[in-house]
């Protein structure tokens, strides 16, 4: 009898991380942002890491947008004492700077996680963490559906444009509520239909099976994860040193 070689998925190119590493790193960054809030170099380093990850992963445009906004906030933070603004305006500026400085690093990291993780890698790594199937399947479906909804929404937008239902037309200003109804309802209906088909397809492929499933996604602790681990230890030590000094 002829033997067929087992299918081996291609090695992922570039700087790929285990999904678990990404999640833990995310938690670390979010926690450190919360603890170390007044040391500017430290915050810049924390923001720089997700920026680099985004660049390496190929989301250059998003990375540049986020990065330049962050740099603007940093510059604004240094020069905000030069000019005396009215109190109210000053308050808004200070709050905006704080929000950007505080939340952007984690936003960038979150964006990186969602863009760089494939659903199968995510599911198999979470299975190794013994996350319940009841949470995993819905999350995997969400992953699958958000891009679908974008596509559907695009085609509905085009269809509705033919009828003059879009922002800014006369029809729109007469009854702004219609834009909501005419855009949202078809979207929901088509997504429900797609979802029914998806669940039928998934069930025939054995999703409802009680036997443990296998997975070919290649995950595990690699060289890249080790680099992230070293960076994390370094960040922790630095934060600790800052805490001792102040």
């Amino acid at each position, binding site marked *: 009898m002829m033997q067929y070689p087992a299918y081996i998925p291609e090695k992922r190119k570039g700087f790929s991380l285990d999904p678990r590493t990404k999640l833990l790193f995310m938690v670390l960054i979010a926690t450190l942002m919360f603890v170390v809030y007044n040391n500017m170099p430290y915050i810049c380093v924390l923001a720089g890491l997700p920026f680099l990850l985004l660049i390496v992963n190929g989301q250059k445009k998003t990375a540049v947008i986020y990065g330049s906004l962050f740099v603007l906030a940093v510059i604004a933070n240094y020069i905000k004492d030069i000019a005396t603004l009215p109190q109210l305006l000053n308050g808004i500026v200070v709050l905006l700077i704080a929000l950007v400085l505080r939340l952007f690093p984690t936003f960038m990291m979150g964006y990186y996680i969602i863009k760089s993780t494939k659903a199968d890698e995510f599911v198999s790594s979470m299975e190794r963490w013994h996350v319940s199937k009841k949470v995993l*399947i819905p999350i995997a479906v969400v992953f699958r559906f958000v891009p679908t*909804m974008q596509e559907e929404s695009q085609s509905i937008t085009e269809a509705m444009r033919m009828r003059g239902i879009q922002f800014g037309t006369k029809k729109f200003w007469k009854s702004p509520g219609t834009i909501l109804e005419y855009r949202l309802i078809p979207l929901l209906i088509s*997504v429900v*239909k797609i979802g029914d088909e998806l669940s039928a397809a998934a069930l025939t492929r054995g999703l409802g099976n009680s036997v443990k499933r296998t997975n070919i996604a290649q995950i595990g602790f690699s060289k890249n994860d080790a680099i992230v681990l070293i960076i994390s230890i370094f960040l922790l030590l630095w934060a600790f040193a800052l805490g001792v000094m102040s």
Partner: protein
Amino acid sequence: MEKTNKLNSKDLINIGIYTAMYLVVFFVVGMMNAVPILYPISLFFVPIVTGIPFMLFATKVKKSGMVFIMALILGLFWFALGYTWTPLVSYIVAGILAEIFFKVAKFQNFKLIVMGYCVFSWGAIGCCMPMWVMTDTYMAHIEEEMGSQYVTQLMQYMPWWMGIAGLGIIFIGGLIGAALGKKMLKKHFKRAGIA
């Protein structure tokens, strides 16, 4: 399909679909958050619009646990998007409360389901909470720099009771949203045969 109280794969996929809808709608409406002044307004509008997918979801909920899992996933998503741990906590609490309402309603009593939806929407307050939770540390920091008078002024614009007012705003928005969702169910989804 056999009638058990356990969640089967079809239920789980349904949860995923409706969570995705909820998230996308939430995102589109939540875009207004880009301007901080609009925060209270978006708190009002988000539950109104998300009422449509949620009431559609409510017609599919026949087993306990579904609402809670949805809330948990939403919380995890906001967490992964970098809103820190506050939405995770708020969504878990809101999910448990909403689950109780759905359970008492036996997944049928419409008034109780509406209450459940309003409570569920409270979870969204966690997305704004970093502002208040973190301003504590932030305020201490700028007090050194700019003096306490400035801090008290800033607190006037972003007071902590905005959080409680936010809960009220969300609740009212939720009531309107549920009514809107019900109307849409009657007008469109029943006719299309999916509710």
